[in-house]
């Protein structure tokens, strides 16, 4: 015990002597709640980036980074706000990676981050409402807003020469948000949505919904639902009644189950799902190795969120949020040397030398619209009963 105490005192003494500053970053994710199965890997990914930066020894004259975890619960705004408050007032964090779910992210942003002037980068909040939230330039996200997906859907359909569609969505925040985003983007591009009808998941019979959609008409049916839920029922009913022959599927419908269920019956249908052809994803998996599951959802975005905060601090030469918030977009976007996962040391070195970098990271980050990821989508066409990737956007 005595030895241990002495050793730790020695370590603390050493760090104090050798390093200019000890930077702490808050990692606020829903370690309990609906996405508790995803968050451990997300937090590991964010901390992986911090370790990489600390070990390089190049960060702000040799500063180290210490993560502090907090629980956002994903659904309880009051608990998340209290946890974030604790991070800032008691732990004195210099920046926050998080939160995860859109609802609690909005609550933390307006109740804690903005009043205290703390920078937040969320790896997974996708609600379009966060784009317009009052953030004083403090909020960024490495996950794309569903508004982006809506815009990309509209683009794909327009380029296919489809100007009139019927739209059905699963009756929850995801479905409704995506449907609204798509409808406004599609109508702005000159298209017509003949009918936008909600469907409930978990029902066996969708003939009423399909009847109404068929009567409204349209060149294609957009199904913003889930592939193993009501979305599949809608497609089945539409095919059986001959109401629609081709469909457009957003991310919730893209899965192996889609072609297993319908095969070549949906020939010529289109869709898109998150995905990138950037080499960053593979490099991220290599760098992580067996440390945690790098293919788990939103791990690349979490790594990128932590890396962006630290690179922005390096670029600003300061850990003061008011100073480095201006640099987040600068390091994330062109021009400059492209930085991939595992190359954070190179990025830090360039920035220390006054150079410019374009952080690509694991999820091909490109910040637009006041600091959110442009999002990368894989464009899909059903050919010969298989999903074929025809391009990336």
């Amino acid at each position, binding site marked *: 015990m005595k030895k241990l105490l002495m050793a730790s005192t020695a370590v603390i003494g050493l760090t104090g002597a050798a390093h200019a500053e000890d930077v702490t970053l808050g990692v606020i994710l829903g370690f309990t709640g609906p996405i508790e199965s995803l968050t451990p890997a997300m937090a590991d990914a964010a901390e992986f980036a911090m370790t990489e930066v600390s070990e390089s020894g190049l960060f702000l004259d040799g500063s180290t980074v210490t993560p502090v975890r907090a629980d956002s619960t994903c659904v309880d705004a009051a608990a998340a706000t209290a946890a974030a408050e604790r991070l800032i007032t008691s732990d004195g964090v210099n920046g926050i990676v998080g939160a995860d779910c859109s609802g609690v992210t909005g609550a933390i942003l307006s109740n804690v981050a903005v009043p205290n002037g703390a920078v937040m980068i969320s790896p997974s909040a996708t609600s379009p409402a966060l784009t317009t939230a009052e953030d004083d330039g403090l909020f960024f996200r490495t996950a794309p807003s569903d508004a982006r997906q809506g815009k990309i859907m509209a683009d794909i359909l327009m380029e296919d020469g489809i100007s009139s569609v019927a739209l059905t969505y699963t009756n929850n925040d995801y479905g409704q948000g995506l449907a609204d985003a798509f409808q406004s983007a599609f109508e702005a591009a000159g298209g017509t949505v003949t009918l936008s009808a909600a469907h409930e998941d978990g029902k066996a019979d969708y003939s*009423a919904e399909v*009847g*109404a959609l068929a*009567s409204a008409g349209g060149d294609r049916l957009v199904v913003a639902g889930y592939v*193993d839920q009501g979305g599949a029922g809608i497609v089945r009913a539409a095919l059986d*009644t*001959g*109401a629609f022959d081709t469909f457009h599927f957003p991310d919730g419908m893209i899965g192996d189950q889609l072609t297993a269920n319908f095969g070549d019956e949906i020939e010529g249908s289109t869709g898109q799902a998150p995905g990138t052809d950037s080499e960053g994803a593979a490099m991220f998996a290599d760098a992580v190795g067996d440390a945690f599951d790098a293919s788990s959802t939103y791990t690349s975005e979490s790594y990128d969120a932590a890396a962006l905060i630290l690179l922005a601090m390096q670029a600003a030469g300061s850990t003061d949020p008011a100073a480095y918030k201006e640099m987040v977009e600068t390091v994330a976007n062109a021009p400059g040397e492209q930085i991939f996962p595992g190359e954070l040391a190179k990025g830090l070195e360039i920035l220390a030398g006054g150079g410019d970098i374009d952080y690509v990271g694991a999820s091909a980050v490109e910040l637009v619209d006041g600091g959110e990821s442009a999002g990368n989508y894989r464009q899909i066409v059903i050919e010969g009963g298989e999903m074929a990737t025809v391009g990336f956007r």
Partner: protein
Amino acid sequence: MDLLNSLIVLTNFVLVPALAYGAQLAIGALGVTLIYGILRFSNFAHGDTMAFSTTITILFTWWFQSIGANFGPLPTALLALPFGIAITALLMLGTDRIVYRFYRQQKAKPVILVIVSMGVMFVMNGLVRFIIGVGDQNFADGERFIFTVREFRDWSGLEEGFGIRTTQAITVITAVIVVALLFWFLNKTRTGKSMRAFSDNEDLALLSGINPERVVMVTWLIVAALTTIAGVLYGLDKSFKPFTYFQLLLPIFAAAIVGGLGSPLGAIAGGFVIAFSEVTITYAWKKVLVYALPDGLEPSGLAQLMSTDYKFAVSFVILIIVLLFRPTGLFKGQSV
């Protein structure tokens, strides 16, 4: 020609689906109404019993498929149906012996039996999930269509078409056969007559020497057959998922009550009333009207009375209206 097109659109999107759905509800409601009429309680376990019997039938279907037995163009599940009925009948008689008989001998009030049936419902709920899991099971095989929309269009040369799925045809035909058999049984056979007598006046029936345990047993056997047929037809036509069957309880009860609880004829009428109102009231009539009305008169909007979100509200509104103005239902069942 335009009128023909409009009729065909109507057939494809309203008549055919509503007819099949109505037939499924009607067979389900027949089971509920028989239990209400003879055993005198609302059986809340009905939906989950349907799920159980369908589960057993699916297991037999898979077994038949694995040994290569099939029914030609018809679904293999029809072959497995008798086995499903037999095992469901055993389960129901067992439940009656273990659970319901006790309360019957206590002469428990109907409301207590309703709560008891909810208990049975939860047990069945768990049983089904233990056996087959919570996911979707698709067990339909054989020919999917009698004719498809496209085939009809090519054959008739019309702009619009309609298709009929094999399962839809089987559903309607089976429903007709089942209903005919049931009515023949209730009206012509000795056992059927004793069941009706028991339903009309229990004390008089007992005085005239009818064995109540025998009536109860026959009722459970018939209900087992009805639930299995309703469950399997629904699963074949749509897909099987335990939770969906649980939710079916609501429209089935609505159908039985609208028709008049305890009245078999009412159950059938109620099934079709609920099915047709769900589909027609939320249907967008634009396409039908565009064909049917002369130029210049066609609607520019969708001509939809109510958004499809309100589909389930429709059956309950009908239920409320019927209960307000005819508490015994359309066909003079027992009042609830």
